[in-house]
């Protein structure tokens, strides 16, 4: 970034060592404090699945799970996530076997351009983990933090509904 540190500042703006687990892999990085979690994932770790849409927490394209909770990776500093467990869209499939949400998004044609899709899928995973949304209205409300400018909302809803229904049918 455009740091113009004076001699006095140089120490204050020193990089910080951060260790975190991303998609099950332990990663150790040296980062400046102003690097967002999204920039760390995309620019340093090469995980470009999480998208930078608005970079202001308004679109949800950067949604990832941190310690099991969905958050906007663009509105949080990587340095604040020492020891965290991060899951991005790249961490959902098991080898060639897609995550049920990924398969359902394909089956229901739940995207057009696809830019918002990684955030939609991670957000839907967070929704399922939270276990509160059941009805179509509840799912819509719980997905309100993810915008789709192509307007694939009905198909996104259908994909999530299907995964929730399949989860309920599956024996514990």
């Amino acid at each position, binding site marked *: 970034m455009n740091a113009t540190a004076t001699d006095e500042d140089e120490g204050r703006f020193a990089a910080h060592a951060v260790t975190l687990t991303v998609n099950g892999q332990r990663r150790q990085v040296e980062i400046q404090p102003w690097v967002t979690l999204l920039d760390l994932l995309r620019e340093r770790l090469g995980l470009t699945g999480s998208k930078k849409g608005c970079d202001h927490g308004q679109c949800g394209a950067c949604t990832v799970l941190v310690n099991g909770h969905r*958050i906007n990776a663009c509105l*949080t500093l990587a340095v604040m996530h020492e020891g965290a467990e991060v899951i991005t869209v790249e961490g959902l499939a098991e080898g060639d076997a897609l995550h049920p949400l990924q398969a359902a998004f394909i089956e229901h044609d739940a995207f057009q351009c696809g830019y918002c899709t990684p955030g939609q899928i991670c957000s839907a995973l967070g929704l399922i983990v939270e276990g509160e949304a059941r009805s179509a209205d509840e799912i819509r409300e719980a997905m309100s933090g993810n915008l789709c400018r192509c307007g694939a909302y009905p198909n996104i809803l259908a994909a999530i509904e299907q995964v929730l229904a399949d989860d309920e049918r599956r024996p514990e």
Partner: protein
Amino acid sequence: MSPFAYRKPAALDEALALAGPGARFIAGGTNLLDLMKQDVLRPKLLIDITGLPLRGIAPTGDGGLLIGALVSNAELARHPEVLRRYPLLSRAILAGASPQLRNMASTGGNLLQRTRCYYFYDTATPCNKREPGSGCAARDGLNRIHAILGASEHCVATHPSDMCVALAALEAKVVVAGPEGERRIPFADFHRLPGDTPHQDNNLEDGELITAVELPPTGFASHCAYLKVRDRASYAFALVSVAALLELDGGLIREARIAVGGVAHKPWRDSEAEVALIGQPPVEASFHAAADILLRDAQPLAHNGFKIELARRCIVRALSDAIGGGRP
């Protein structure tokens, strides 16, 4: 974002000792980082308080509830005691932001949210809140989302929080720690009207940190409602929101509280409007009369005149909803 230094203290006194000019505390960061990206705020030091032991939700001695400043909005909204005793608070929180933001945003930080006035965010325009003395671009600009009550010639911004509207109605207290020790600020005295110092959103002193929010014993759980009207179905700031609380006794109103969001620089309450409801039957005519009192000094700007009638209708509907709208 301008460069800054970062520290993460492990204890409260250590965090307070780091505070000073150019330093800011950070917890959820959802509003602070946004403002830093916009160059509205340029702190030299961020003091990360997420390592402090401020995550508890515990009963108080007098039967209230003490909420640690680092409790996330999501956790607070679904806490069993909040759902059971303060359903208004849960509903207000869930009416705000998105699930992702509520997972990050903290209780203390929600109180310190800055206005979403376009001109406060746009560093190319004058704004007395961002740059004292520079002027107010909103007063004669696009002011559809701005204040109708309590504004000044210097600032017509509104407070954006939903949670704070509920906390104002519930008469919470804000617990703060600072160089002089701990103090409790009644919620009504926490946020300020703009006057000629709109750069000061609240009455925190330099170096003070919110450590908790204290709820009183009474949550009006049987008769409460939170109504929010916005430009889209979800995930938008309120044009008008109303928290309504009623205590009924023998078919008459024994106590009423009305807090209105989206209309002023702080959640708006009016004791005259509330007192006027005492002893009245809980019917629309009573609610209309109270709404008229609350809005008697409302002043429209060029584009927000609709808010006066909208607020009137929202107040009447929220009070009507509160009659049957308690704990499920």
